[in-house]
């Protein structure tokens, strides 16, 4: 059990957490970039140092991505885009310590629940998930998109259009199934497709700058309350909220774990599905706490989702893919065989995850909230000039390509127009992430079944997922109708 938890391992865990916290907290830098830049370092490290470090970096950087959302409306991961507006609002109105406290504590509790569930049910769920074929993956993507429509809380038709725009952007470049180039307009830079991180920087970061340039507003936000008892706001109040909303946290964490078990789904869809469920259950009379609950729903599922992917050896998202890559580099093959061949290592991995969630997230979470509290005090216009610089460099640094700066600027303009028209932005990112998964699995399934579309409904698991999708649409429409009715009665 102590394979990874030697003193070197614990030191690596602490330093990795610090690196992840600082990196993830800077708007424009992402968890993906944090783990990617660690690869060359990991190459030269011993496994007992490299593995705890990469686990700590990814766990803390995924949470720290919320700092960008809180301060500058730039989400660090597609998962944090699911509750971006709510977190930004809470951080501005109730203070960054409280907003990020919900995020850190939610992530920590979700991660712990995820790990415990993994310990008790990994083998069973891994067996179930191994039966998934392209038909099920297609339906998983459709389910994620259906959840995204109702996650916005606004007009479903506008959320649907935003999703379609995201799906459209995902078709740029080489077709994932047949290899035909699409919508590249003769530019070799577009053949590789649009990077969704670059798009996210433009959609959320640069569009905020454009919005302020256009509207000439003196100060858009009300100043946050004076921070008194930062530790109380960061630890105690969010923990009380978690105790009050224990069923929400449990439900979101379980959703995160189950969605995380599905390769290709990962943390992002887990957070989106949980947030969407919470949006549907929105209670008009408890509006004041609704934002807090939505953040809690998203964060308690985003950190529990990628852990189970280790048990299958198939990554759910880019961060997990890089983490698994480091595992392989160190001679450890994640997947079902890990349970049989290296139970000691598996147990020490569980313990590392628990430590990362129990100690690192609360500790470094507070540190990053302090950074956010400083940044949030800076006059917003001054921050916008800084954000412009980070947007440019962040977009450039992903692929070392100046062309991506144009993509980022273009996405900023598109996002500005969408915001003006009342279209939600986060759904564009969801469409970009899920588009290739949906298209590829649809085409593979269709070709496999010789275009017999009935085959999409024949497998029991696929049918179950389709029913789940229909249930989300039905419940979403029903709850929305009730919400609109109660709003108009008041």
């Amino acid at each position: 059990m102590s394979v990874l938890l030697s003193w070197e391992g614990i030191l690596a865990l602490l330093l990795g957490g610090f690196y992840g916290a600082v990196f993830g907290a800077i708007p424009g830098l992402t968890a993906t970039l944090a783990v990617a830049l660690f690869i060359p370092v990991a190459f030269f490290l011993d496994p007992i140092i490299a593995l705890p470090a990469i686990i700590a970096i990814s766990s803390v950087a995924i949470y720290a991505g919320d700092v960008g959302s809180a301060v500058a409306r730039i989400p660090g991961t597609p998962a944090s885009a699911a509750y971006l507006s709510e977190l930004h609002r809470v951080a501005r109105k109730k203070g960054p310590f409280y907003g990020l406290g919900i995020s850190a504590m939610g992530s920590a509790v979700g991660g712990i629940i995820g790990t415990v569930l993994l310990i008790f049910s990994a083998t069973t769920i891994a067996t179930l998930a191994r039966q998934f074929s392209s038909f099920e993956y297609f339906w998983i993507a459709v389910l994620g998109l259906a959840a995204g429509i109702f996650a916005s809380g606004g007009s479903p038709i506008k959320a649907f259009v935003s999703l379609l725009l995201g799906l459209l952007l995902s078709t740029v470049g080489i077709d994932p199934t047949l290899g035909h180039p699409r919508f590249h307009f003769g530019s070799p830079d577009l053949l590789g497709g649009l990077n969704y991180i670059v798009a996210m920087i433009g959609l959320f970061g640069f569009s905020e700058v454009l919005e302020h340039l256009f509207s000439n507003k003196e100060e858009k936000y009300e100043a946050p309350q004076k921070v008194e008892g930062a530790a109380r706001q960061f630890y105690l109040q969010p923990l009380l909220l978690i105790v009050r909303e224990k069923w929400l946290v449990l439900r979101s964490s379980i959703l995160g774990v189950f969605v995380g078990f599905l390769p290709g789904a990962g943390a992002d869809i887990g957070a989106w599905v949980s947030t969407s469920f919470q949006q549907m259950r929105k209670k008009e009379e408890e509006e004041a706490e609704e934002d807090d609950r939505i953040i809690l729903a998203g964060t308690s599922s985003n950190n529990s989702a990628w852990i189970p992917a280790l048990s299958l050896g198939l990554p759910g998202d880019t961060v997990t893919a890089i983490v698994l890559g480091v595992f392989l580099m160190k001679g450890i093959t994640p997947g079902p065989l890990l349970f049989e061949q290296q139970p000691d290592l598996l147990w020490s991995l569980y313990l590392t995850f628990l430590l990362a969630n129990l100690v690192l997230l609360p500790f470094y979470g507070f540190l990053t909230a302090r950074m956010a509290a400083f940044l949030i005090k800076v006059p917003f216009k001054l921050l916008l000039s800084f954000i412009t610089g980070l947007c440019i460099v962040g977009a450039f640094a992903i692929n070392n390509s100046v062309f991506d700066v144009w993509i980022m600027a273009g996405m900023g303009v598109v996002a500005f127009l969408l915001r003006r028209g009342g279209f939600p932005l986060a759904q564009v990112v969801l469409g970009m992430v899920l588009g290739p998964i949906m298209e590829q699995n649809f085409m593979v399934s269709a070709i496999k079944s010789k275009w017999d579309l009935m085959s999409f409904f024949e497998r029991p698991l696929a049918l179950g997922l389709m029913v789940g999708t229909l249930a989300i649409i039905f419940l979403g429409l029903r709850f929305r109708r009730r919400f609109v009715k109660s709003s108009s009665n008041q």
Partner: protein
Amino acid sequence: MKNASDGISALILCLLGLGIWWQSGSFPSLEEGYPGPSLFPRLIAVGLLLGGAWIGVKSVQGSEKITKELKESPSLLKLGGGVILVAAYPILQPLIGFMLTLGLVCLGVALLLGIKPWIALVSALGTVLFIFVTFEMLLGVSL
């Protein structure tokens, strides 16, 4: 029309849908006439046309909430200035280098935002210095 903003959105969405449908026509089909790489873009085009039509109808009926009112004094000139400054970065960067280009862009954006010139200058210098230290020196990202 009770909501002009939605009416314009509807028109743009329909035009976009038609454009995608037309552009997808040049993609090849599979053997035996099955749809190939054009299938998904065309489904998206249909979705955009339907979505645009729905929003258009609702804007005429006035049942969708009016989305964003311009209570402020909007400045298209500043907006355009911001876009041009950032779009000029890839052109200027190879000519005058990363630090100077980024500094100029940040300074320009700060001035457009109405920040006092000396504060804008200090802020631009600070941004460039922070980015240089974080990316180039600590992370080894070549700028």
